[in-house]
C-alpha cells in the first residue's frame, strides 16, 4: 500500500474518532441534566434511580465516555434509553427499508441527471435548457417535506394513483417480512417516495453535469472529434461526456451519507419505517444512544464515500497518487 493510501486511511480514522467524541459531548452539553429527559420526573424516585444505574448515567461523564468508546470498539452501541433494547437491533431493523428507498433513487437520479445534464448542456441556449435549469434550481431550493406533501395531496388523494404512505398495505403481510419486499404492493408503496426523492436528488447531478459539459464544449479534443467527421451524438457521448464525468464520479460516493441523512424528511412524511423516521423519533425523546449510532453511521458512510471517491479519482486520473 502506498504512502498516499496509508495517509488517507489514517486521516479517515481520525475524522471518525473526532466525530464520535464531539457527538458524545455535544449531546451532553445540551442545557440541563440529560437524565431528566431519559427518566421522567413523574416516575417514582426509586424507579428513576434504578433506571439511572441501568443506563450508566450515575457515573461521571468521562467514565461514561470511556465506556462508550470501549463498547464501540467491539461494535456494542449500547441500549436505547427509550426501549431498553440494543441500539444495533433498533437500527438494524430499519436500515434495509432506508437502503431500499434511498439508494435506487440516488443511482437513478445520478444516471438521469448526468445524461439529461449532458444533452442540455450540449444544446446551450435552447428553451429546454432554460426551463430545466429554472425547474431544477427551484426544485432543489424547495423544502423536500413540502414537495412530498404536495405530491401526496395530488397523486395520492386527488388522483388516487398511489397509497398515502407506509411500506406496504397495512395488514397485508402479517407473517413474513422477506416476501413483502418482493411484492407488487411494496413497489406500489415505494413508487411515490422514490419518485419524489429521485426528482429531488436529480437536480444536483443535472446542474453539475451541465456546467461540466459547458466547460468541455470549447476543448480542442471536441473540436478534433468533430473534424474527424464523427456524428454530433458520438462527439457528445464518447468524448465530451466521458471527460465530464469526473466531478460526478467523485461526488456520487460522497453523497452516500447525505442521502441517508436526507431520508429523514421523506420517511416522516411517507410514514416509511426506516432509519430516518427512527432518528426523528429518537431525537424527539433524547434517546442519545440511538441518535449517536445513527449519526455515526452517517459519518461512516460519508468518510467511506470520500475514500471511494479518492479511489475512483486515482483510477480516472492516476496523477493524484504520484503527486
Amino acid at each position: 500500500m502506498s504512502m498516499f493510501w496509508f495517509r488517507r486511511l489514517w486521516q479517515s480514522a481520525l475524522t471518525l474518532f473526532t466525530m464520535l467524541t464531539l457527538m458524545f459531548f455535544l449531546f451532553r452539553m445540551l442545557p440541563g441534566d440529560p437524565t431528566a429527559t431519559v427518566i421522567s420526573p413523574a416516575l417514582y424516585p426509586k424507579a428513576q434511580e434504578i433506571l439511572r444505574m441501568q443506563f450508566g448515567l450515575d457515573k461521571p461523564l468521562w467514565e461514561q465516555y470511556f465506556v462508550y468508546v470501549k463498547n464501540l470498539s467491539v461494535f456494542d452501541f449500547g441500549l436505547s434509553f427509550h426501549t431498553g433494547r440494543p441500539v444495533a437491533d433498533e437500527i438494524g431493523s430499519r436500515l434495509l427499508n432506508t437502503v431500499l428507498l434511498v439508494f435506487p433513487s440516488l443511482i437513478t437520479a445520478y444516471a438521469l441527471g448526468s445524461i439529461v445534464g449532458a444533452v442540455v448542456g450540449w444544446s446551450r441556449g435552447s428553451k429546454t435548457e432554460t426551463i430545466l435549469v429554472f425547474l431544477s434550481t427551484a426544485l432543489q431550493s424547495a423544502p423536500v417535506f413540502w414537495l412530498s406533501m404536495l405530491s401526496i395531496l395530488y397523486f395520492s388523494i386527488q388522483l388516487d394513483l398511489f397509497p398515502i404512505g407506509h411500506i406496504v398495505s397495512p395488514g397485508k403481510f402479517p407473517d413474513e417480512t422477506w416476501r413483502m419486499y418482493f411484492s407488487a404492493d411494496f413497489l406500489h408503496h415505494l413508487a411515490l417516495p422514490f419518485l419524489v426523492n429521485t426528482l429531488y436528488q436529480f437536480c444536483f447531478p443535472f446542474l453539475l453535469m451541465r456546467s461540466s459539459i459547458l466547460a468541455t464544449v470549447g476543448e480542442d479534443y471536441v473540436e478534433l472529434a468533430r473534424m474527424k467527421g464523427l456524428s454530433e451524438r458520438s462527439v457528445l457521448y464518447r468524448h465530451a461526456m466521458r471527460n465530464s464525468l469526473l466531478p460526478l464520479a467523485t461526488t456520487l460516493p460522497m453523497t452516500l451519507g447525505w442521502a441517508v441523512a436526507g431520508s429523514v424528511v421523506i420517511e416522516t412524511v411517507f410514514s416509511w419505517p426506516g432509519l430516518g423516521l427512527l432518528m426523528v423519533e429518537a431525537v424527539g425523546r433524547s434517546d442519545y444512544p440511538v441518535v449517536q449510532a445513527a449519526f455515526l453511521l452517517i459519518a461512516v458512510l460519508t468518510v467511506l464515500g470520500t475514500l471511494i471517491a479518492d479511489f475512483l479519482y486515482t483510477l480516472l486520473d492516476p496523477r493524484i497518487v504520484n503527486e
Partner: protein
Amino acid sequence: MKLATMTAMAVGLLVAPIQGVAEGRLVPEINFLTWPSTKYQHYYETSAYLAESWRKLGLDIKLDPQPFPAPMLGMWFTDHKFDVVMSVLSGSSARFEPDFYSNNQFKTENSRPGGMNVGSFSSPEVDALGARQMRTYDLDDRREVIYELQEVLYDQQPEALVAYVVNTTAYNTENVKIEGYESTPEGLRSIWNLLKVEPLNEDKIVRLGWTIDQDSWNPLSFKTLEDLGRLGLVYDRLVVVGPSGKPEMWAAESLDAINETTFEVTLRDDLTFNDGVALTPEDVKFTFNYLKENNAVYFQQYLENLANITVDGQKIRFELSTPSAPFVAAALGQIPILPKHIWSNILEETGLEKPQDYRNTKIVGSGAYNLKYWKEGREIYFERNQDHFKAPKADLLMIQFGSAEILSSSLTKGDIDITLQPLVPTVIEEFKALDQLELVQAESNGYMSARYNLNTELFSHKAVRQALSHAIPFEAIIEEVLGGDAAPTPSSIVPSNAYWSNPELEVPDYNLDKARKILTEAGFTWDAENRLHFPD
C-alpha cells in the same frame, strides 16, 4: 365579556394611582418558567396571556421559556427553579383516581425534589384530609372527603387553574359504528370505546391510525401511558376505571374492604389465557409479587405499600402496610395479570439475564384481545377474543403514521376508519363539513395551570393567590389560544372526572377590580408607576 373585561381594566387603571403612596418594599421581579414558543406555542401563549393580565395588577413578570424536556423538567420537578411554572399535566383514566390530582400534588410530604408538590404548598388541613381519604374505602364516603379537600384547596388557591383540554378525534361512519361513545380522557383509545367499535365490513377489521408506536410490551420495563393502554387490551386487570372515574369490576367479581389495610377480591371463574390455561388466583398473587420483586418501573410506586397476598379458593386477600384507598384504582386497576406458568421460568426458557430484557411480543394473556403481531414502526394487530366476558366486536389494526397531517388525510380518503390522534382546530373545521365523518370529543382529566412556588415571599401570601385567581383571562385563552377546545375548571380534579369533581365549586370570575380589592385589603399598595408593594 369583552366589555366587562375592558371596564374592569379601565377601573383598575383608574384606581391604581388613587391607592395612595406605596409603603412596603417593592415586589421583586417574578420568574415565570414556561414552555418554548416554537414547539409548544399553545402553552407558551397561555403563560403570556397570564403574565399580561398579572402585569396589570402591578406585578413585574418575566417569562422564562426553557427547552422541553431538558432543562425544563428538571427546573420544574427537581430543582424548583421558578416563581411560577406553566404546568400542563396530561390526562389518563388512571389519573381519575382522585388522590392523584389532589392530595398527591399538594401534600407537604411530596414537596421533596422529584415529588409532585412542585410549589412546596403546605397546609395541615390538606394533609389531614389527604390522609383521611386514603383510609376511606367506601366510595361515597371517600367522595365527601375529596369534596372537602377540593374546597380547602379552592380557598388556598395553590395554583392558577386555567383550563382542561378537550381533544377531538374522528371516525368514518361508512366503515364503523360506535354506539354509546363514552367521553373518557383517552377518547376512542379507551378500552370502553374500543370494545364498542363495530365494523360494517365483512372481515371485521377496524383500521386505526396513530403516530405513537409501542415501546415495550414488557410489564416490568415499560414506562409510558400509551404502552400501558395497549397492555390493557391484551391482559386483564382486576378492576378497570370506568368512564366516570369510578372503578368497575373486571376480572374481579367483587371487592371488599375488610379493614383499613386489607382488601378481599373474588376472582371470576371464567378466565382463560390464550394458550388455553385457566387464570387462577395463583396467577394474580404471582403477578403482584413478581412485579414488586423485580422493581417494575411503572408499578413500583403502587406496590411498595403491599405487604402480603394470600389466596383462599377464588378469593385473594391483599394486605397493605398503610391504609391506601387509591390502591384500588392505581394498583388493581392498572396491573396486568400475568400467567405464572410463563413468567415464572422465563429466564430458563429464554436464557436472558434479567426478565426486564424479555421482549414479550408473543403475549400470553387473557385480555379482550390477543396480540396477533406487532410490526415495529408499522402496525399492531389485535385479534378479538370472542370467548372473553367483554367480547369485542372487531379486530383492531393500529397503523403507525409519521405525520399527523398525513394521518388526517388518510381518514378522509378512507384508508383508515378511526384516528386516535387528536385533531388540530383547522382540521376539525374541515372535517365537520364531511358527511362520512363523525367527530367525537375526549375530555381530558389533565389540565393547565400556573403553579406558584410558595417558598417565595409573594406567593406565600394567600391573598395574592386568591387575587390572582380573579386575574386569569381563561375565556380569552380558551377561545384565542386553545381554539375553543378546552373548558375552565374550579378544581384540579376537573369536571370531566365526574364522580370525584366537586360540583359546588365555581370558577372564579375574571375581574381585575376584585383582584385589586383583595390585594388592598391584605395591605398591598401600588406606587405612582402602578408597581405592587408588599404590606408594610
